[in-house]
C-alpha cells in the first residue's frame, strides 16, 4: 500500500507537466501530447495503487501544517468517492489527450493547449483531493480560470473570447459565493477540515446560519454545474476546441458542482430547504435543458443543452434526499461522463471531417464514416436510456426514485410524469442527432469531402463506448465494486441496499422507460422534419440568458463609471485634502465620544534652551511654508533649520542614534534638493500683478490654512495627551533585558535593528535599494523642460565676466570658486571614511551602526564630487553604487541564511569574543556582518541617487543636440554605476 503523501505526487504531476509543456516549441504537437499522456498515465497508475486502501469507506489523508493557528492546513484527502472522480478526471483526461493530438491543427500552438489542459487537470484533481474547505475553494477558482483559458484558446475568434469571459464571470462569481458559504460552514463546524465539517452535519443543519450557508454553497455549485437559471454560459462555452468541450464541459468541470453537492450531501441534505431548492432547480434544469436540446441546430449546442439536462437530472436526484437517489446520482455522474464525452468526440470528428456542425447541412454520413456512425449511435442510445447500455441503468434508478414519495407535497404527484416527459425529450433529441447526421440522402454543399477519421482519433471513442456497453451489460462485475466503494465513503452507515441488475422484472420504471422510448421515436416521426426550420426553442426561447447577462454586466460597468465620475478625482490637491479630512474624522469621532483630557503625569520642567530652540525651529518651519513658492533656496534653508532643531531634540531626549542619523540625512537631503532646484521653472511673484488674487484662490488658501491649523493643533493636543500619560508596559522590557545576553550589544536600538527585528531591517534596505534603482532608471530617460536646458543665468554671467576680462579663459571664475574649502573637502575624504568605519564597528555597543556609517561614507563621496566636479572625480575614482547595493543585500541575506546551517531560524545571530593582539578582547557578533550589509546598501543607495541626479547637469547641454548623445551619456553613467 502506498503512503498517503504520494497523493501529493498525483496532484503535482499535472502541474509540472503543464509547466514543462509551456516551454516546448510552438510546433511540438506530438511531443506535447506524448508528455501530457505520460503525465496522465503516471498519475493514473498511482491513483489506481491507492484503490485497495479505500475499501469499506476508509479515507486516506495527509496533512502538511501551514497555519495551524487559523485552522488552515494543506490536506490531501482521498475517499472512495473522490477516487472515482479522480479516475474520471485522469481516465477521460488520457483519452482526451490522445484525441486532441489528432483534433488540433498543426497550425495551432498545441503545446500551449496541453499546458492549459494539464493545468486544468491538476486543478480538478486538487479540487477532489482537497481535505480542507478553503483549499477546495482555491482549486475551484483555478478550474474556472483554466476553463476560461481553454474556452478562449482560439482567441482570435470573437465568440470564443465572449464565451470565455461569460464562463469566467459566471463560475468565478459562483466561486466567491462558494467561498463565503464555506467560511460560514467552517464557522459553524469550528473547523475547515472536510471530515470535521461532515461530522458536524447535525450542528450545521440546526444552526441559524444554515440557510445562508446552504444558499451560498448552492449558488457556487449551480453556476459551475450550469443549473437553471445560470445555465446559459455552457452553450456559449462550446466555442472551445471540442476536446475541451468533451473534457471540461461534459465530463469533469461541470461535474464539480455535483461533486460538492455529493461530498456535502450527508452534512447539508435532509432539510426542507435543501429539498425545495435543490430538487426544483434540478427539475427545472432537467426539463428546460432537454426541451432546448431538441431545437438546437448546432451539433455541439444540442450536446451542451443535453448536458445541462443531465446535470439537472443528477441535481434533482440529490435534491430528493434519499440515500438511494444519491447512489443513482453518483452512478449517473459516471455514466454521463462516459457517453457524453464520447458523443462530443464524435461530434468533433464530424466537424473535423465535414467542416460544419450545422445539423441542417449534415445528412447521410453513415456512408462515409460507418465506424464513427456506429460508435455515435451506441453512445446516443446510452444517452437516450436504451436497455443494455449504462445510461439505461441509472435512468431506471432515477425513474424508480421519481416514483417514490419524498416530501408529501404536490411535487410527488407530478414527478413521475415530468420525469417520463424529460426522458421522452431525451430520446427525441438523441434520435434527431443520429437520424439527421447519419441517415437520409448524401449531404450536399459541405465545406469538405467527408471521410472516416484516423484510427487513433477514434480509439478514445471506442474505449468509452466499450465501457458504456460493459457497464450496461455486466454492471455488477464492472462498475459495481467501484460504485460500492464510492457510495460507502459518502453515505457511511446510511448506505442503502441496491441492485445493479439489468432486469428487475416488469415494473413501473420499465414501463416509463418504454413510454419514453416509444414516445420520443413517435414524436420525431411526427415533427422531426419541422425541427430543422426552427430558429429558437419555443416557449423558453424568450429566456435570453445571454442578453440578461450582458445587460447586468454593462449596468455594473456603467454604474462603476458613474460612481467614479461623482466621487473620483485626478487632482492631487483634492485627494490630499480628502485624505487629511478623513483622518480628522477618524480622530474626531472617538474624541467626540470620549472627550479630551490631558494625562495625570506631571510634566518635566521646561528647559529655556529647549524652548528657544523650538522658537527658532517653529519660526523657520512657518517661514519655509511661507516662502516655498517664490524663494525656494531660502525655504530650503529654513527647512534645514527646522531639521536641525529636530536633530538636537533627538539628542536632548536621549536618542543619540536618531540625532546622528537625522544630522546625516539632513545633509544628504539638502544636497539632493539643491541638485533638484536647477530643473524647476522660474516663478515670478507678480502673477496677479497689480490686483489681488481672485476670490476662489483666496477662498482655497483660507480653507487650506484652516485645515493645516486644525491639523497642527490636533496633533499637538494628541501628543501632549500621550506624553502626560504613564507608559504602558510594552516590548521594551524584553529588548532591554535581552540586548546584551541575547544580542551581544549594549546599544539597544542597534540590537533591535540588526538582531531582534533584523527581518524588518532587511525589508527596509530592500526598499531602499528598489527606490534607488527606480530613481536611477527614471533619470536615464530624463527629459528636462526646454527652458531648464539652457545654461543657468549665474554661469552665463561668470562666462561673460571671463570673456570681458583680459587673461581669463571662459570657466576660470567657476574653477577658482571656493578654492580653499575645496582643498579642505578633498583632504577630509579619508577622515570621513575612517569616521564611517568607526561608526560602523562601534554601532553594536554605542551610537552608530550601519545606517549612520553608510550615510557618513556617502557624504564623504559626495563632498569629493562637490569639491572636484563630477568628471574629475570619475576620472580617478570609480564608485559603483549598484555593486555596493547588491553586495550589501547579498551580505545581509547571506548572514541571515547562514543561521540555517546551524539549525537556527533565518537571521538568528551569534556572538562571541575574539582576542586580537594589541587591541585585546573584541566582541564579534554575526549581527555586525548584517550591519555591514546595511552599510553597503545605504552607501550604494545614497550615492546612486545623488550621482544620478548630479549627472543630469553635465549631460543637459548635449540633451537637445542629439538623441544619441543622451543615450551615450546614459550608458556611460551605467558603466560607472
Amino acid at each position: 500500500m502506498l503512503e498517503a503523501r504520494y497523493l501529493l505526487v498525483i496532484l503535482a504531476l499535472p502541474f509540472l507537466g503543464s509547466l514543462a509543456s509551456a516551454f516546448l516549441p510552438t510546433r511540438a504537437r506530438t511531443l506535447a501530447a506524448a508528455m501530457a499522456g505520460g503525465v496522465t498515465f503516471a498519475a493514473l497508475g498511482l491513483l489506481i495503487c491507492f484503490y485497495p486502501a479505500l475499501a469499506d469507506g476508509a479515507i486516506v489523508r495527509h496533512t502538511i501544517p501551514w497555519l495551524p493557528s487559523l485552522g488552515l492546513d494543506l490536506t490531501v484527502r482521498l475517499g472512495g468517492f473522490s477516487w472515482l472522480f479522480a479516475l474520471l478526471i485522469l481516465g477521460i483526461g488520457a483519452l482526451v489527450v490522445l484525441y486532441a493530438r489528432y483534433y488540433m491543427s498543426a497550425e495551432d500552438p498545441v503545446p500551449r493547449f496541453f499546458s492549459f489542459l494539464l493545468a486544468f487537470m491538476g486543478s480538478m484533481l486538487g479540487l477532489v483531493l482537497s481535505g480542507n474547505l478553503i483549499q477546495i475553494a482555491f482549486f475551484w477558482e483555478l478550474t474556472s480560470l483554466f476553463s476560461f483559458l481553454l474556452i478562449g484558446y482560439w482567441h482570435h475568434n470573437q465568440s470564443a473570447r465572449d464565451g470565455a469571459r461569460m464562463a469566467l464571470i459566471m463560475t468565478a462569481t459562483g466561486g466567491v459565493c462558494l467561498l463565503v458559504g464555506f467560511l460560514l460552514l467552517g464557522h459553524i463546524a469550528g473547523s475547515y477540515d472536510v471530515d470535521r465539517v461532515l461530522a458536524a452535519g447535525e450542528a450545521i443543519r440546526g444552526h441559524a446560519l444554515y440557510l445562508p450557508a446552504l444558499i451560498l454553497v448552492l449558488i457556487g455549485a449551480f453556476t459551475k454545474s450550469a443549473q437553471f437559471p445560470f445555465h446559459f454560459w455552457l452553450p456559449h462555452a462550446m466555442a472551445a476546441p471540442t476536446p475541451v468541450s468533451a473534457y471540461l464541459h461534459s465530463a469533469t468541470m461541470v461535474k464539480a458542482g455535483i461533486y460538492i453537492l455529493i461530498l456535502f450531501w450527508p452534512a447539508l441534505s435532509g432539510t426542507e430547504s435543501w429539498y425545495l431548492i435543490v430538487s426544483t432547480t434540478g427539475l427545472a434544469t432537467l426539463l428546460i435543458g432537454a426541451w432546448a436540446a431538441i431545437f438546437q441546430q448546432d451539433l455541439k449546442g444540442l450536446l451542451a443543452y443535453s448536458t445541462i439536462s443531465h446535470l439537472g437530472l443528477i441535481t434533482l436526484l440529490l435534491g430528493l434526499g434519499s440515500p438511494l437517489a444519491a447512489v443513482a446520482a453518483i452512478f449517473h455522474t459516471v455514466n454521463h461522463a462516459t457517453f457524453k464525452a464520447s458523443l462530443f468526440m464524435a461530434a468533433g470528428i464530424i466537424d473535423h471531417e465535414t467542416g460544419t456542425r450545422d445539423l441542417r447541412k449534415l445528412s447521410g454520413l453513415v456512408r462515409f464514416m460507418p465506424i464513427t456512425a456506429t460508435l455515435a449511435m451506441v453512445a446516443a442510445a446510452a444517452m437516450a436510456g436504451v436497455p443494455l447500455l449504462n445510461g439505461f441503468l441509472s435512468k431506471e434508478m432515477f425513474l424508480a426514485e421519481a416514483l417514490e414519495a419524498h416530501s408529501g407535497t404536490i411535487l410527488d404527484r407530478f414527478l413521475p410524469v415530468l420525469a417520463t416527459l424529460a426522458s421522452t425529450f431525451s430520446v427525441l433529441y438523441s434520435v434527431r442527432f443520429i437520424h439527421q447526421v447519419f441517415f437520409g440522402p448524401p449531404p450536399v454543399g459541405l465545406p469538405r469531402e467527408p471521410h472516416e477519421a484516423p484510427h487513433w482519433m477514434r480509439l478514445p471513442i471506442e474505449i468509452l463506448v466499450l465501457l458504456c456497453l460493459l457497464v450496461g451489460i455486466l454492471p455488477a462485475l464492472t462498475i459495481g465494486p467501484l460504485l460500492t466503494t464510492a457510495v460507502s465513503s459518502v453515505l457511511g452507515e446510511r448506505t442503502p441496499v441496491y441492485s445493479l441488475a439489468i432486469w428487475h422484472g416488469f415494473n413501473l420504471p420499465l414501463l416509463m422507460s418504454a413510454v419514453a422510448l416509444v414516445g420520443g421515436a413517435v414524436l420525431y416521426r411526427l415533427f422531426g422534419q419541422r425541427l430543422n426550420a426552427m430558429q429558437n426553442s419555443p416557449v423558453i426561447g424568450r429566456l435570453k440568458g445571454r442578453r440578461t447577462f450582458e445587460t447586468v454586466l454593462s449596468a455594473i460597468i456603467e454604474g462603476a463609471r458613474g460612481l467614479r465620475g461623482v466621487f473620483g478625482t485626478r487632482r492631487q490637491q483634492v485627494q490630499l485634502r480628502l485624505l487629511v479630512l478623513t483622518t480628522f474624522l477618524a480622530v474626531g469621532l472617538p474624541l467626540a465620544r470620549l472627550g479630551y483630557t490631558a494625562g495625570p503625569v506631571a510634566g518635566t520642567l521646561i528647559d529655556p534652551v529647549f524652548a528657544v530652540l523650538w522658537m527658532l525651529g517653529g519660526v523657520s518651519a512657518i517661514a519655509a511654508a511661507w516662502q516655498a513658492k517664490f524663494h525656494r533656496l531660502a525655504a530650503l534653508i529654513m527647512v534645514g533649520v527646522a531639521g536641525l532643531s529636530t536633530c538636537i531634540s533627538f539628542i536632548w531626549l536621549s536618542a543619540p542614534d536618531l540625532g546622528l542619523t537625522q544630522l546625516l540625512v539632513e545633509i544628504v537631503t539638502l544636497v539632493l534638493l539643491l541638485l533638484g532646484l536647477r530643473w524647476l521653472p522660474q516663478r515670478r511673484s507678480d502673477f496677479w500683478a497689480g490686483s489681488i488674487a481672485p476670490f476662489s484662490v483666496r477662498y482655497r488658501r483660507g480653507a487650506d490654512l484652516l485645515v493645516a491649523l486644525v491639523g497642527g493643533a490636533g496633533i499637538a493636543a494628541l501628543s501632549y495627551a500621550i506624553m502626560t500619560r504613564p507608559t504602558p508596559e510594552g516590548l521594551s522590557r524584553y529588548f532591554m533585558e535581552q540586548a546584551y545576553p541575547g544580542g551581544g550589544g549594549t546599544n539597544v536600538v542597534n540590537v533591535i535593528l540588526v538582531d531582534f527585528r533584523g527581518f524588518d531591517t532587511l525589508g527596509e534596505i530592500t526598499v531602499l535599494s528598489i527606490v534607488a534603482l527606480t530613481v536611477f532608471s527614471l533619470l536615464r530617460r530624463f527629459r528636462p523642460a526646454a527652458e531648464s536646458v539652457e545654461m543657468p543665468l549665474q554661469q552665463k554671467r561668470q562666462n561673460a565676466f571671463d570673456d570681458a576680462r583680459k587673461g581669463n579663459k571662459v570657466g576660470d571664475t567657476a574653477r577658482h570658486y571656493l578654492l580653499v574649502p575645496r582643498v579642505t573637502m578633498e583632504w577630509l575624504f579619508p577622515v570621513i571614511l575612517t569616521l564611517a568605519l568607526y561608526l560602523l564597528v562601534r554601532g553594536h555597543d554605542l551610537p552608530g551602526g550601519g545606517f549612520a556609517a553608510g550615510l557618513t561614507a556617502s557624504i564623504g563621496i559626495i563632498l569629493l564630487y562637490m569639491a572636484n566636479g563630477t568628471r574629475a572625480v570619475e576620472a580617478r575614482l570609480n564608485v559603483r553604487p549598484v555593486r555596493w547595493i547588491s553586495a550589501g543585500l547579498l551580505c545581509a541575506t547571506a548572514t541571515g541564511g547562514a543561521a540555517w546551517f546551524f539549525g537556527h531560524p533565518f537571521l538568528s545571530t551569534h556572538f562571541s569574543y575574539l582576542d586580537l593582539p594589541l587591541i585585546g578582547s573584541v566582541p564579534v557578533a554575526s549581527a555586525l556582518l548584517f550591519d555591514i550589509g546595511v552599510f553597503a546598501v545605504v552607501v550604494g543607495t545614497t550615492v546612486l541617487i545623488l550621482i544620478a541626479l548630479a549627472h543630469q547637469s553635465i549631460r543637459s547641454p548635449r540633451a537637445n543636440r542629439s538623441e544619441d548623445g543622451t543615450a551615450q551619456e546614459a550608458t556611460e553613467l551605467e558603466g560607472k554605476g
Partner: protein
Amino acid sequence: MEAVLALAIGTLTASGLWLLFRPRTFQVVLGLCLLSYAVNLFIVAAGRLRTDAPPIVGKGAVDPAQFVDPVPQALVLTAIVISFATTALLLVVLLAARGLTGTDHVDGEEDDL
C-alpha cells in the same frame, strides 16, 4: 518640556500640511520633509520624554526603568533613512513630470482658474 515639544510638533505639522496642499511640486516636497520631522518627533514623544537616559545598557543586569524606551527610536531610525529615499523618489518623479508636461503643477497641468 512636554508642552514645548507638543507645540513644536503642532507647528511642524501645520506648516507641513499647508505646503502639502500647495499646487507647486517643490512646495509639496518641502511639506513632506516638515511632516516627516513632525511624525518622527511624535513617535519619539510616544516613548515619553527622558533626558540623559539613552538606551545604552551595561553588560550586567539591566533595570529598564533607568533608560528611555528604545522601541520608538528603532522605528524612527529606519523611518529617517527611508524618508530620504522617498523624498528622492518624489523629487525625481516630479522633475521627470515637469520635463514631460512642461509645468511644475502637481497635476501636470495648470489650474484653469
